[in-house]
């Protein structure tokens, strides 16, 4: 049975015609191009790279940016695209998130005209792929402690350091690398593929996000032109500003993964018969799980929608996005686990999407600010006392 639209509370009445049209495009694309191939890619651990030109043509890269061939979508429209893509697969959504929010956005927001002209049209068309290097082997939740250094030498910068858990790292044509300059200030640099001293390798043995590329990056006396420095931002607020964009998309995306799991569980429960030939959907304990899921999905939709509207009005600071990311990813992971339970043994095989989503969501729960770190961001916001240190 194909995926059936999930909307318990007439959420659609909150959306404009254009927003529904954007969702329809993304859903049709996922149904036709992603669902038929995704289990194979997940099983093989391969990124469906052939989808990149199609994603570009539909306008999914940098969809909420203006100019440079970008569509100039509202935040809710962008969010709905993320929801539909992650209904397909979190790895695919991650790829689009990184390209849009972590590569195109910093060039757009912090870059100079030459950098924007050089990279944004290519990234929008999918002719170039980007990656974002912030996390390091020793510094995850505390990126401010990063060890990567950029030393000025005439009209060059020399980068040294290591980045880890980098989506699209080994396939990227350009990497946005965050490094500390000699004065200890974090700055962003554009490092092109093939630059001597820059190496990328893939992380193997992942049981999550198997349809996306995850890499490590190493820079050893990696010399880049000083013109590759992103001039528009200094300090941790640079990378964190990008992460706010990406986390916003994740909040919507996770809702899509939850919808996929819920739909699979609901369809299965209505059709699977046990005890006196009755569908398991007639059992109270199964209904409890389904009711829990649709309630949490509905709440998550409303949270995503409200943060999107606030973002469009320029009123969504990072602490609101933290609540969205934290709640919706947790909710999605719980839905995946409950759905796996409802599907019984069938839940562990890739005839169904549920286990794949569950394994993917374990990454999503941790990346872009762990679940717990987002709690601390909210805690800081409401008490005024930062508890990170």
């Amino acid at each position, binding site marked *: 049975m*194909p*995926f*059936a*639209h999930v*909307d318990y509370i*007439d959420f*659609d009445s909150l959306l404009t*015609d*254009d927003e*529904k*049209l*954007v969702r*329809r*495009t993304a859903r*049709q*694309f996922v149904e036709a191009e992603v669902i038929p191939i995704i289990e194979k890619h997940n099983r093989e651990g391969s990124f469906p790279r052939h989808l990149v030109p199609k994603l570009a*043509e*539909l*306008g*999914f890269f940098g*969809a909420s940016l203006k100019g440079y*061939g970008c*569509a*100039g*979508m509202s935040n809710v*429209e962008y969010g709905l*695209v993320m929801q539909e893509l992650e209904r397909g697969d979190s790895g695919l959504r991650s790829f689009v998130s990184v390209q849009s929010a972590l590569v195109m956005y910093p060039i757009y927001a912090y870059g100079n005209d030459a950098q924007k002209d050089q990279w944004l049209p290519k990234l929008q068309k999918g002719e170039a792929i980007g990656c974002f290097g912030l996390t390091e082997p020793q510094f995850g939740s505390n990126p401010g402690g990063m060890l990567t250094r950029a030393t000025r030498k005439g009209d060059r910068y020399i980068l040294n350091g290591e980045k880890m858990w980098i989506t699209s790292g080994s396939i990227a044509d350009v990497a946005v690398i965050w490094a500390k300059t000699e004065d200890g200030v974090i700055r962003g640099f554009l490092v092109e593929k093939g630059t001597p001293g820059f190496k990328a390798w893939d992380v193997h043995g992942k049981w999550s996000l198997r349809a996306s590329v995850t890499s490590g990056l190493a820079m050893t006396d990696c010399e880049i032109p000083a013109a590759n420095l992103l001039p528009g931002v200094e300090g941790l607020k640079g990378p964190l500003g990008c992460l706010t964009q990406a986390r916003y998309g994740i909040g919507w995306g996770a809702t899509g993964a939850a919808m996929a799991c819920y739909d699979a569980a609901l369809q299965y429960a209505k059709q699977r018969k046990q005890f006196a030939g009755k569908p398991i959907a007639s059992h109270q304990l199964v209904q409890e799980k389904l009711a829990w899921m649709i309630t949490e999905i509905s709440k998550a939709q409303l949270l995503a929608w409200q943060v999107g509207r606030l973002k469009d009005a320029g009123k969504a600071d990072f602490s609101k996005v933290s609540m969205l990311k934290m709640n919706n990813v947790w909710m999605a992971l719980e839905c995946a686990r409950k759905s796996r339970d409802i599907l019984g043994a069938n839940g562990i095989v890739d005839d169904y999407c549920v286990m794949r989503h569950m394994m993917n969501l374990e990454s999503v729960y941790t990346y872009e600010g762990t679940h717990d770190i987002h709690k601390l961001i909210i805690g800081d916001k409401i008490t005024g006392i930062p508890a990170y240190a």
Partner: protein
Amino acid sequence: MNIVVCVKQVPAKDAPLAIPEGAAWIRETDIGFELNEPDGYALEEALRLKEKHGGEVVAVSMGPERSKQAIKEALAKGAERGVHISDDKFYELDPLGSARCLAAAIKREKFDLVLTGLQSDDHGFGQTGVLLAELLGLPHATIIMQIDAADGRLKLKRELEAGWFQWVELPLPAVLSIQSGINKPRYATLKGIMAAKKKEIATLTRAELGVTVSPTQRIERIYVPKKTKKTEILTGTAKEAAAKLVEKLKHEARVL
């Protein structure tokens, strides 16, 4: 080549349908709607003909306010303009009434070709295109699988039954009902959706069109077919039972 394409908005394929007691139509308040899939093929064909021969594509739809969404989808995919025949009682119309309204609106346009889908996914009458051609006084062909246009004439491939096709020729202007599957409809790109915001949708009412219609047919009742199971035991010896089974397969099931 100026092309009018008729698009209808129908309940979404995955909408949970509810039929109120004794009602002649489904409850529409809590379901989603989408572009009628067969009309999507007609739209795609119209866009391809325009891209090849120039001109414009005008999407015409009839129905309540929400049906503008079908026009917007057409505009997002590349149609130039939309015409919305605003009608809250659209569902009371039979195919002849629908065709009369559409014909009145289309007569106001300068067009070379009118395309419709083969049928709608909700009512499924499959008559509106044929009636529209009759009312416009134009030649018409159905179940179109290929359109070759040259020198003011159309060479058309029609799908017949049992794997047979037929080639026919028509002069322009003409009305065609497009077979589903003739092409692979494009997606509405995000840029297309943004561009569509600036495109014009003209609104007309039945009164403005001067069309009065009295239904020639009406729906009495709709219902979900009841699933029934009937088992018949064929008696007699194995030979007799086999002979009866062959009879039944020949004359009742008609599979032999």
